[in-house]
């Protein structure tokens, strides 16, 4: 028993997610030691609030990358949905709730555009979403002619982004809801199973009778819906909607997902890893302010962290290869580890 459980512990400790958890904790403790206000509840709620939109995008980016795809358009879609939401509320006279629902639908539609190009025409996701990255942002700018902003939302709507409900920032509840749904989807349903199968081998999945196209379509449509949700939360947090909302968020989301241990080639990865990846970046960004370090340092450290995480992933393999090459001839085959 002890032997078995020990090896299980060992494999758990060697997990990417565990290492990342340590990183987050160390980051937190470290900043807590420097910034007197860093550890306060208020500040931690701030971190959460500021991370919700990028966190949402990272959450839905996870299944996409699991299938071996990528979606560069989510940030632009966030901007487009934000102004569509504003337009629906202000110009079409819908209540924020109704406008929100319609926006979610429009997000699904935009995700559906990606999905149909990728699945029906079998185009590479990188290129398709590179195109829609420009397209969505461009449409958003064209609709507002760049300048139009939507503000003066009712307080009942702003409650979603700026207040607390049951002790937590309101949007955290939505975020947790989405996180739980995506986690269950990826780790506890046959959908997640097929995402991984597609990521490892799209042809193999097709030959196994899995509905490859509809599964792929699902992840991109889901990304559209969640980007729309992020847009609504973003609007509520800032109290305004503008065409430049969410610029560059796609890269943050991808960074968080990859930092969280998801392989960019597909198949391997976890949702909790992504959450930790988001946390690592968010804590770093906030903590450096408290440590009075320049903002640019956050970007540099994130880049370095990403490279370090990737290198750590391949280091054991390289080490083993190097060792076996250099201890080749004298002794018989080296003992396996």
């Amino acid at each position: 028993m002890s032997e078995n459980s020990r090896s299980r512990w060992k494999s758990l400790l060697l997990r990417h997610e565990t290492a990342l958890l340590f990183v987050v904790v160390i980051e937190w403790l470290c900043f807590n030691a420097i910034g007197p206000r860093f550890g306060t509840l208020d500040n931690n709620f701030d971190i959460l609030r500021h991370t919700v939109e990028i966190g949402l995008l990272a959450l839905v980016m996870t299944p996409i990358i699991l299938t071996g795809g990528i979606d560069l358009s989510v940030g632009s879609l966030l901007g487009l949905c934000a102004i569509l939401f504003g337009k629906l509320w202000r110009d079409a006279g819908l209540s924020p709730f109704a406008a929100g629902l319609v926006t979610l639908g429009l997000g699904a539609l935009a995700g559906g555009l990606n999905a149909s190009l990728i699945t029906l025409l079998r185009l590479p996701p990188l290129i398709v979403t590179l195109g829609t990255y420009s397209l969505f942002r461009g449409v958003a700018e064209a609709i507002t002619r760049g300048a139009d902003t939507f503000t003066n939302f009712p307080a009942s709507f702003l409650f979603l982004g700026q207040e607390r409900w049951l002790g937590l920032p309101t949007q955290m509840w939505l975020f947790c809801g989405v996180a739980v749904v995506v986690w269950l989807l990826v780790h506890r349903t046959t959908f997640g199973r097929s995402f991984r199968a597609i990521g490892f081998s799209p042809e193999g999945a097709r030959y196994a009778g899995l509905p490859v196209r509809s599964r792929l379509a699902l992840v991109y449509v889901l990304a559209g819906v969640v980007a729309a949700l992020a847009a609504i939360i973003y609007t509520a947090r800032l109290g305004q909607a503008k065409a430049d909302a969410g610029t560059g968020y796609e890269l943050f989301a991808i960074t968080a997902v990859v930092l969280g241990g998801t392989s960019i080639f597909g198949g391997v990865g976890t949702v909790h890893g992504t959450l930790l990846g988001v946390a690592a970046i968010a804590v770093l960004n906030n903590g450096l302010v408290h440590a009075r370090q320049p903002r640019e340092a956050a970007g540099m450290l994130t880049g370095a962290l990403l490279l370090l995480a990737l290198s750590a992933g391949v280091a054991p393999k390289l080490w083993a290869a190097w060792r076996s090459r250099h201890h080749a001839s004298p002794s018989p085959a080296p003992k396996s580890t």
Partner: protein
Amino acid sequence: MKKLFCFALTVLLLGGCGKSTLDRGSASGPGAAGTGGKVITVALLPKSKGNAYFISCKAGAEKAAKALGVDLLFDGPTDTDPAKQNEIVENWITLGVDVIAAACDNKEGISTALRKAQGKGIKVITYDADAMPDARTFFVNQATPEGIGYGLADEAARLLNGQGEVAIILATLTAANQQEWRKHIETRVAEKYPGLKIVAVRPCDDLKDKAQAEATALLGAYPNLKMIMNICSPAVPGAAEAVKQAGKVGKVKVIGLGLPSENRRYVKEGVTDSVMLWKTEDLGYLTVEAAVALVKGTLKPGDKSFKGALGEFEIKGDNILLGKPFVFNKDNIDQFNF
């Protein structure tokens, strides 16, 4: 191997942190609220960090901070990003600064955060670009949007004798102050200069190279173009270079908002006719001075003027007026070195 990874990260972070502790030096903790004997912390928020304009403001602010013996925090988004500004303000609220001085990228958006700061007893003033009036006590007004817009339009009319086609290059289509300036330029032209015609408005993403490309295209597309007006600072040298390359120096005039240092060469060569700007260092200096006075209580709402190291400034309503913008041209540009 993962252990190695953790270890390296720890070293990395601790290294960074250790340095920061030293940086803070003698200044007391930023949490020290209020006035009595504690060092005041002033937080200065630019629209974006990597921008020569705000770097120049910062230089002035640093001088003021040194003279007044206050702690200065300067932080902003690395790229213009409205959400990031809110984030930074909220960070400062938790950090417990005494006063926030903000240049607002998005009026309504950031006001949410600024009101929150006021709610926590932090004084708020704005500079460069204003927030909603209820979200701050004073606005250090370097020049009103009307002032800038009208000033540029007037200058254009003067140079062109009130006749001709004008194209505008701005930073992005979405930046609030750019749109406001543009609006005022258009209003003024419509009201006073019927002979001027604004034929195109192009964004340059706040990049000099892109501005040059846009200007090149404009020169080709509008053969009767008489002037390129640039309302963001990287666009002025960009447009000037394009005009120079196209061999249209003198035929197409270049004016705009910009720093003397970036435009000196073109102004001297006669490519750029005039560059408008206020003394950015003074703006930074005055902002910090006013902020500190507000915390100390020497500046109160309702005051009619504010006297500082740079002299006395008029207060109009809740706007502290820096004075009129300067127009730099061939004759006076060497007097300014920012």
